[in-house]
């Protein structure tokens, strides 16, 4: 079922979807550029060189994981410790990937690889919301992933190569780019009362757990707990 191609629009449907995905992913791009730059600055200052810093962002595409791995190496922890810590932090992608899987049944393997390669908290949030609204397809997901990847990688290159030019990114209000995007995405999720109930449970338990658990764990634990409450309450 390809969209109608009229005389006025000879663009390939896959291309139209890809461009639509890139537009959807623009808020992610906005948020990634400065954080990627921050990673580039920190990595270059630690001595990794520009090539390794940029390759890390281009191949790994993991915000917290990259920062923590670099921090551990800088602090003198061994390579094995850094690998173990980042593996645990990045385990959350298993949850996101499993949630995406039912939406990718008809997707050929090479597109699954492209979508999986660019799966982050942010691209997951955008694509799963778009899927729920029935608008998402393979190429729009790939477009979201591509523009996000460009933001993260280009940001790192900028930061690593031109620390002086970038200056302090926080003066542009970018500290709030990703929280703002997640706020909008949260509103988008609340399509029915049961999602609102689960959201309140997740928020309350994440906040409660953030007093005892470090890093991203309150989010993961709160989300898993609240999804379980939802699945039991609304069977």
């Amino acid at each position, binding site marked *: 079922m390809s969209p109608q191609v009229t005389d006025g629009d000879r663009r390939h449907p896959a291309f139209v979807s890809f461009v639509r995905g890139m537009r959807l992913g*623009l808020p992610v791009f906005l948020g990634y550029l400065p954080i990627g730059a921050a990673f580039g600055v920190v990595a270059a200052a630690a001595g990794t060189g520009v090539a390794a810093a940029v390759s890390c962002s281009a191949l790994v595409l993991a915000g917290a994981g990259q920062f923590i791995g670099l921090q551990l190496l800088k602090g003198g922890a061994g390579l094995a410790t850094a690998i173990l810590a980042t593996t645990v932090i*990045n385990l959350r*992608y298993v949850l996101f990937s499993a949630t995406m899987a039912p939406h990718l049944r008809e997707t050929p393997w090479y597109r699954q690889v492209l979508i999986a390669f660019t799966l982050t908290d942010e691209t997951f949030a955008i694509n799963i919301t778009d899927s729920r609204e029935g608008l998402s397809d393979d190429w729009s997901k790939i477009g979201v992933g591509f523009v996000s990847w460009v933001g993260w990688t280009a940001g790192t290159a900028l930061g690593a190569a031109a620390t002086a030019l970038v200056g302090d990114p926080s003066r542009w209000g970018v500290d709030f780019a990703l929280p703002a995007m997640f706020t909008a995405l949260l509103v988008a*999720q609340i399509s029915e009362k049961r999602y609102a109930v689960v*959201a309140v449970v997740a928020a309350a338990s994440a906040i409660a757990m953030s007093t005892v658990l470090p890093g991203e764990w309150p989010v993961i634990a709160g989300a*898993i707990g609240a999804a379980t409450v939802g699945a039991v309450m609304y069977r």
Partner: protein
Amino acid sequence: MTVTPSLMWSLLIAMAVTNLVFRLGPIALLSRVHLPLPVERWLSFVPASVMAALVATEVLRPGGRWVVPWHNVYLFAALPTALVYWKTKSFLGATVTGMLAFLALRYFLG
């Protein structure tokens, strides 16, 4: 201490491999089978849970520290952001509004 390029390369290759396994594994395996209904129902609650948990921690505890609510620029900036998304359904519009509100609030409150 200095993180040499070769040390960084070792870490990044390990991270790239584990990340690809984590990201692609479930998609590649689970998209071929039909999951049991309770599991699918559980997964349907994951997005709302993740988003709510993220927003709650990022807005109420920005940078991992408690901020008194009436001095919390993140909290106040989240309100127009949510309103703009609710009215316009535009992620970009809501994000840009949030950033502008954040800048203005930080200027006046911070």
